């Protein structure tokens, strides 16, 4: 089965973000960027499916600016077979991304799509579900365990839901979105990083795909949230309990 993984290049989760003074967005120039952590989990899952002989080939795709190719190379170094790069505006909305991925899935005859449940920049948590809807495929969101069944015709996915877990059976082809507990991504070895440079990375343009990318959704402005007022230091457990009981009134 052919597996497609989607990744997004985002501000590194350990960087303190800065909202631009003009309210146009979050500063990303000269900021450390990384692969979205949930997508790293998706990459790891695809590599494991390949190692288990379940995936016949694995492809990783990124939509974004030219620097996204670094993240694609990193995914290749982790064991993904080949990469697709779709150059586009960073502000592409989830529906447009889902439409592009839909075209790729059809062109590449993909049978399983794995991607992060959300990107940690826009926190939308939409693309996987939209893609599944556009394809009329089942969706298995927030996966913490994936078991391919019946020689690759169906899948059993454990999902992280509020207050517990759910086990969902779905026919393949399907879209799976990853949650934190699915796996622990590996690190790339130096030989694999070198080898990744030889693996195919193909560029496809949005025009080639003939997908409408306009949506009726616009980010008008981005602002920093209210900052917390500086608190106080207490010097003992008694003083702390006194404050919590009598000032903040949060404990009895």
């Amino acid at each position, binding site marked *: 089965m052919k597996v497609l993984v989607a990744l997004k290049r985002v501000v590194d989760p350990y960087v303190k973000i800065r909202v631009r003074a003009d309210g146009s967005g979050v500063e990303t120039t000269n900021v450390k960027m990384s692969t979205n952590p949930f997508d790293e989990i998706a990459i790891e899952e695809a590599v494991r499916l390949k190692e288990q002989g379940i995936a016949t080939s694995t492809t990783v795709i990124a939509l974004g600016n030219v620097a996204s190719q670094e993240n694609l190379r990193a995914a290749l170094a982790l064991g993904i077979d080949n990469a697709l790069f779709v150059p586009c505006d960073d502000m592409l909305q989830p529906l447009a991304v889902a439409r592009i991925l839909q075209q790729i899935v059809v062109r590449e005859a993909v049978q399983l799509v794995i991607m992060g449940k959300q990107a940690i920049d826009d926190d939308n*948590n939409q693309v996987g579900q939209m893609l*599944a809807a556009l394809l009329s495929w089942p969706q298995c969101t927030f996966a913490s365990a994936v078991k391919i069944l019946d020689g690759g015709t169906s899948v059993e996915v454990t999902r992280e839901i509020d207050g517990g877990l759910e086990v969902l059976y779905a026919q393949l082809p399907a879209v799976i979105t990853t949650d934190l507990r699915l796996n622990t991504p590996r690190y790339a070895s130096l030989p694999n990083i070198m080898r990744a440079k030889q693996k195919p990375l193909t560029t496809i343009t949005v025009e080639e795909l003939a997908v409408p990318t306009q949506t009726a959704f616009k980010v008008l402005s981005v602002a*920093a949230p209210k900052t917390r007022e500086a608190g106080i230091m207490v010097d003992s457990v008694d003083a702390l309990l006194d404050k919590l009981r009598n000032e903040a009134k949060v404990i009895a």
Partner: protein
Amino acid sequence: MKILVIAEHDNEHLKASTVATIVAAEKLALPIEVLVAGYRCQAVAEKVRTLAAVSRVIVADHEVYQDQLAENLALLLQSLSSSYSHILAAASTFGKDLLPRLAGLLQVSMASDIIEIVDANTFIRPIYAGNALATVSMHDAIRLLTVRSSAFNAAITTKAELAELSICDTVYALEKTKLIKRIESKSERPELGQAKVVISGGRGLQNKENFALIEQLADKLNAAVGASRAAVDAGFVPNDYQVGQTGKVVAPDLYIAIGISGAIQHLAGMKDSRVIVAINKDAEAPIFQIADYGLVGDLFKIIPELLAKLP
């Protein structure tokens, strides 16, 4: 035009998050209708009918909707959607799974996790785990929204006269997905995302055994237990305890961070808590910059003292 709110329930009880979603919908000042799709879910529908803000309840009561899976609920919603200008659901795992699928079917955009309604087309939502707030505008014929419950937790009034009840007998069978089972967390403690008090431990706990101190303290305060990514990575606790940008985002009344230095990653997941307490041996730890009350000291002395002095 009208608003449709999707009720979240277990066929017996309405979830509190749906009430918060209705509170949010009231701000749009349009008639509110609620869809209750399930199986033998009459009690839920009757409950919704008592809510003063609701003008009509649509019940789709059929075996195929028993488990409320996205596959057929999205189709059902699509069939009902043309009468509405807004369709809302709670930003729970149920709403987050379902609404984007509906958006895909309708080929419209949606706004996730909104915390404020500016007007019928303009909404505010957190991005970067709440480190920035985006004001967004939507101009599709139908605006799809998931709502962050904690931002709309006002009380809701009930009324003696029940809302109109309509029966929807459209049946969409499940063709490609099937629920095998749901496993509710057995923990006696409150759920991390819902708890009024959260006690989190970090690398300062040093090992898995010591993390029991955090759990004892949580039991004293009827609190949920959280952890920093460092504590999770070190194997002290499982992944689902993680509070932070890539873990759970929480906003309890009281958040106590113990042995947590306060990496950006972690702060993003808890900085909207009402009262934050930090206990750390390093007076320079960044966690103190956002704490309402800070206590510098050895957690292995402080926690036992807290345990002794709390009732």
